[in-house]
């Protein structure tokens, strides 16, 4: 089993050091990567770890209100929350990712939360191929523009423009889900060539109607094209050069 913990330079990294200084034992599956701020952790990095078979990723940062960069930790929380809600419907156990606040003086807490996380991963078992494949797809979604734009603009929308946070969260989740679906459609098309909405629905396991609307949107963005009616149904294929 492998557990990756992102630690921020100001709070949780010294917190982990303190666990060492106090000789507190914590799971030897834990590996630490230091970043300056928990807000530095791009979801791509979390997903990269999962798609490479790491069983659990924990982002740790300063307690709310104590971030050295003021709101980095809140950005991190927003991202991890989003990821968990996306995982919920993408076949990845959302418990594989979590966020924790650990101050520089909380060596004890570092040991505790890593132990608890290990126990949780023990319960849900090692990451399976289905989850790895899904992580790969979501990774690609979070390396493309649309999902990143909507996620990145969250703070501006909510805090500077006064958009209702719940509403925005809904938009964000919907957008990312849509992108995940489109990514899966693309992969199916790449694998099989041309497919209809119904055929895609069968393979992907999402309603044909939803797939159809996404096909239309993708066509409009010239990612795919329809190649006309084949065997009684409208088929779509990837646009050349995509």
């Amino acid at each position, binding site marked *: 089993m*492998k557990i*990756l913990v992102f630690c921020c330079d*100001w*709070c949780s*990294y*010294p917190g*982990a*050091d303190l*666990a*060492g*200084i106090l*000789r*507190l*034992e*914590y799971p*030897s599956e834990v*590996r*630490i*990567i*230091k*970043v*300056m*701020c928990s*807000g*530095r*952790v*791009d979801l*791509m*990095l979390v997903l*990269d*770890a999962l798609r*490479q*078979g*790491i069983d659990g990723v924990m982002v740790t940062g300063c307690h709310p*209100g*104590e971030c*050295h*960069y*003021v*709101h*980095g930790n809140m*950005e991190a929380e927003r991202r991890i929350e989003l990821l968990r809600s996306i995982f919920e419907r993408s076949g990845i156990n959302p418990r594989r990712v979590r966020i924790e606040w650990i*101050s*520089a003086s909380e060596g004890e807490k570092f*040991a505790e939360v890593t132990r608890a996380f290990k126990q949780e991963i023990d319960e849900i078992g090692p990451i399976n191929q289905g989850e790895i494949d899904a992580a790969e797809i979501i990774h690609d979604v979070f*390396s493309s*523009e649309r999902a*990143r*734009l909507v*996620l*990145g*603009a969250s*703070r*501006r929308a909510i805090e*500077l423009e006064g958009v209702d946070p719940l509403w925005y969260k809904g938009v964000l989740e919907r957008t990312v889900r849509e992108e995940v679906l489109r990514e899966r459609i693309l992969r199916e098309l790449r694998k099989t060539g041309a497919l209809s909405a119904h055929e895609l629905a069968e393979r992907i396991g999402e309603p044909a109607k939803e797939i159809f609307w996404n096909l239309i949107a993708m066509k409009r963005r010239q990612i795919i094209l329809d190649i006309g009616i084949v065997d009684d149904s409208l088929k779509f294929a990837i646009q050349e050069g995509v």
Partner: protein
Amino acid sequence: MIGVFLCGCDGEVSERIDLKWLGEVAERDPDVGYLETDEHLCSKEAVRKIRSIVESKNLDRIVIAGCSPRTHEKIFDDLASIVEFANIREQAAWVHPEKEEATRVAADILQSAIVRAKLAAELEPVRVPIEPSCLVIGGGVSGMQAASDLSAQGYRVYLVERDERLGGRVKRLSMTFPTISCGFPCRHDCPECELTPKEEELYASEFVEILTSTEVMEVEGRIGDYHVTLRTPEGVREIKVGTVVIATGTKTYDPSRIPEYGYEFEDVITSIELEDLYMKHRFLGGGGELRRPSDDAIPKRVDFIQCVGSRGEKGGNPYCSIVCCLYGIGHARAIKEMHPACEVYLHFTNIQAPYRGFEEYYRESESLGVNFVRGEVKLVEKGEEGLVITYEDVDLQKSFEEATDLVVLSVGQEPSDGAKELAELFYRELDPDGFFTEVNQKIVREDATGVFVAGCALGPRNIRYAVADGKIAAENALALLKKGEFEMEGIMPIVDDTKCIGCNICGNLCYFGAIGVTEEIAEVVEGKCRGCGICAAACPEKAITLTQFDDEEITAQIEVFARAGEVSG
């Protein structure tokens, strides 16, 4: 070529981790060209040795495997152009008791440090010039001391005070404790002393410009180059300074927030109003007499209530206000000295005053006849004859309801008005109580803002510490000013202008205003960036790379951990 140095830490590491095997793991990496193990890498001799090896073997990158970089980063940092740390002591040796397990973890940590060393870019340190001037905000004892020290070295100082006069809280105190003669600025028993020597000195200095009735409106810029807009009585004015000292002090707690204490009655006053009473009678020529507000009579009984608005008493602030025991007892004693017939009670739950000489001072007031009563004051109300105070005495296990002539509320201190706005202007953190925090309180690190905080703005303290703070802040500012430039670690975002779409998501996320779209694409302001990397993580186009902690480095580390076990197998 990478050199790897393993440290045994005098057994702390070498007894818990198989360093020999660790060395073998390192040497399997083709880029590792040199390996050395020592029990004391941080010793002078070892450091000297590393230096000479780096030179003779032409190593441009080294990895130090041993304690946390937090322990000895500074010792090793300049030994090669790239120095990476493998924290195998805190993260392996000390947390995994099984040697084999600890060794396996250490191997991963070491390999991840090695890949970081391979990928790390040499950081171009960023140098920014420091404007030879300082803005001091707040003209209390702390700010005055800072202004005085800075100007004594010939630097231009703008001393901004929003009140009409300098002096802050201390100018309202009739006497100060525990020294009684307060020293700086001395106002003890000298009603004729309009300007203290310090104030005169500041007004006389050719380097100090004192701006009273003035406030800070806006701040732009970075360490060494702040453009500050001030609101002065003459109008709006802009100044340019290299450093800033914030010394905005505190305000006192408003006791009407605790209705039981009867602050609405004329003869229930705060400690500050007590000071005003003394001052008034001193000016009126009444000598050192204490006369109560309602009828100018010398009170026959005075009750002090301690911890008003502090220490969580009756819903007040959670912290101790530090000076109120000191001045409460001081005043109680002074009243006893002035009017020996006056009965003086001091209601407290705990006495907190860990100052040199305080204990003796406290005993003395006891022997002068001040009644120290431990226990809660339940109510101060107005009876037919005058004020009635209901209190309990925990030591006697009894409650009392007695008439009194004057009640003094020893009010605590809170962050001064506008502290939050000022903190935002300077990107400073406030602690949960709303006070400024010391520079990088959590870990001592070099400051990268050129903004220092002194005195009660950091939390309640007595005059002596507030003055000492002023000196320290001035020292810190002077260190910067004297160097004339500031060199910062070049952790910096670099924007790829072929990818940037000008969405300004980075600009909205950066708290420090260090990145943002001015024309079409994002630009980074050198000297403002603190290197958090939040912008890079959020850029929709992935147009931002970081000179440290870049995606490339982190993904390489992830890869090491993901395939771990395969190599060590």
